[in-house]
């Protein structure tokens, strides 16, 4: 079988259980305030890459790629300890404040320096929650977009996915190279083993700057962003509701609540 290069794009995000807030000075996410973790859906992306590798006879390499500040290296290490073969970290002071279009551009430039037959991503990051990067990256690369996959089949050079749609699913097919995004139904991610954690320390880890990938800094960072936040205000917390034990009239009282609010 032909060798296959898989690149998994992963993102470090604030722990989703932690309170998130925007820095008052520049309306940007206060990333230092919360614990940072591997974006949950990206674990599924890494797992899917590892499963593809394990199911193939031919030579397969799984490289994880992430763009983010210095401490993103921890998250790349976590993916290595799950079993990825190599890590690439795109980090540059000029990246601070980059928006989604800029991120897709920078990742595309980085991918331009790496062999890749298949790019696998999560379908959404828990902090940005835009769900746009996989499609944007396919656009930047001019490669096939196979997103929101709950099932992936690779047969020689053809990939077939079941794409979730608003009323069911579609079976979508393309020739490699392709950009995939996965939803959580696709698999159950493994935990890093002790052996995996030890092995991760010796795996190739490459750090790239914007100059290394030939990306134009003018298109990146806050100045390159195509959108601007004018204002960010905390909204009053939801006022505590009325929670009552069912004393035998719970359904009746619920009906009264709905009627009082004109829903019934």
């Amino acid at each position: 079988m032909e060798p296959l290069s898989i690149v998994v794009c992963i993102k470090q995000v604030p722990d989703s259980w932690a309170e998130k807030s925007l820095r008052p000075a520049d309306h940007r996410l206060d990333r230092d305030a919360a614990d940072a973790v591997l974006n949950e859906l990206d674990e599924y992306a890494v797992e899917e890459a590892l499963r593809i590798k394990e199911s193939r006879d031919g030579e397969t390499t799984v490289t994880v790629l992430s763009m983010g500040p210095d401490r993103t290296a921890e998250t790349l290490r976590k993916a290595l300890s799950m079993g990825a073969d190599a890590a690439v970290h795109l980090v540059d002071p000029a990246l601070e404040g980059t928006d989604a279009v800029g991120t897709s551009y920078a990742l595309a430039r980085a991918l331009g320096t790496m062999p890749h037959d298949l790019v696998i991503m999560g379908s959404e990051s828990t902090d940005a929650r835009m769900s746009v990067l996989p499609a944007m990256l396919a656009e930047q690369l001019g490669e096939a977009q196979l997103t929101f996959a709950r099932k992936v089949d690779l047969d020689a050079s053809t990939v077939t996915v079941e794409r979730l749609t608003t009323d069911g699913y579609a079976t979508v097919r393309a020739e490699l190279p392709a950009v995939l995004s996965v939803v959580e139904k696709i698999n159950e991610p493994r935990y890093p083993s002790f052996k995996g954690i030890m092995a991760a320390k010796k795996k190739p880890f490459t750090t790239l700057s914007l100059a290394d990938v030939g990306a134009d800094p003018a298109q990146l960072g806050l100045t390159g962003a195509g959108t601007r936040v004018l204002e960010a205000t905390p909204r009053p917390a939801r006022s505590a509701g009325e929670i009552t034990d069912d004393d035998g009239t719970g359904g009746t009282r619920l009906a009264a609540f709905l009627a009082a609010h004109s829903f019934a």
Partner: protein
Amino acid sequence: MSQVLVLVDHREGVVSKGTLELLTKARELGEAAAVFCGPGVDTARPALAEYGAATIYVASDPAMDQHPVGPTVAVLAALVAEHSPVAVLVLATAEGREVAGRLAVRLGSGVITDAVGLDVDLVCDQQVFGGSTLVRSQVTRGVPVITVRPNSWPAQPSPVTPAELAVEVAPAPADTLATVVDRVRETGGDRPDLADATVVVSGGRGLGGPDGFTLLEGLADRLGAAVGASRAATDAGWYPHANQVGQTGRTVSPQLYVAVGISGAIQHRAGMQTSKTIVAVNKDREAPIFELADFGVVGDLFTVVPQLLEELDKRSG
């Protein structure tokens, strides 16, 4: 007057309510122009006319349906180049966001996703971090591409007789690399779509099986609601995946959300926590869903829901 392009979200020509909301807003910002891709424009025409689409651009090439996202982006990009619209508005469905994202890259524009408000200066309101923060932002480069959540403002009719123009689709080679070989529809029937519904009734593991969902459908029909489900319920096969509400399912923001036998995990909350009024039935007082609920009943759903139905019947006399 400059045009505002609205990508029509439809199912074989049946136009979603969210699209009518976008047309309503487009009329405030300029001249509303609907962009209709795929088959079914005859079905769609009356609704688009009633909600004030002065122009309907129609791209009915079979490529529109055979390849996801790419050809739609090609149509919008061509229309933007030709007409320099004020903005492009797209409904914030999973596919709508993808169209918007790719279009922004192709045009070199900025993109804003999930707007819940939009003023005449194209300043967008977004609710981030589960609705805890309100952000006002603006596109600063190129023709603004904006995705808008359904139910963000009411749709108001303003009938016109639209001019209709056929659009030749010229997808770039990269737009047709992925091909749809089969489509399976798992939802249907007469209930409203999750995105359109003003009331959503959702069930979780607590329903215990498909029979629980029959009970829930009874409640939904009584309230004119769409039916949603938690991942636990869709994974168990009790209800179609397409009805999943949450991070990897649908995001809904109805007037009323009724959560029955759902614990309220963070991934579920991600899809419903901006609902206006939230009601929950759960036998566990500690369930996190109660943190969001305006009204909650701690009790067994198999007694609470039938009693609720009975009482609703009584009230309607």
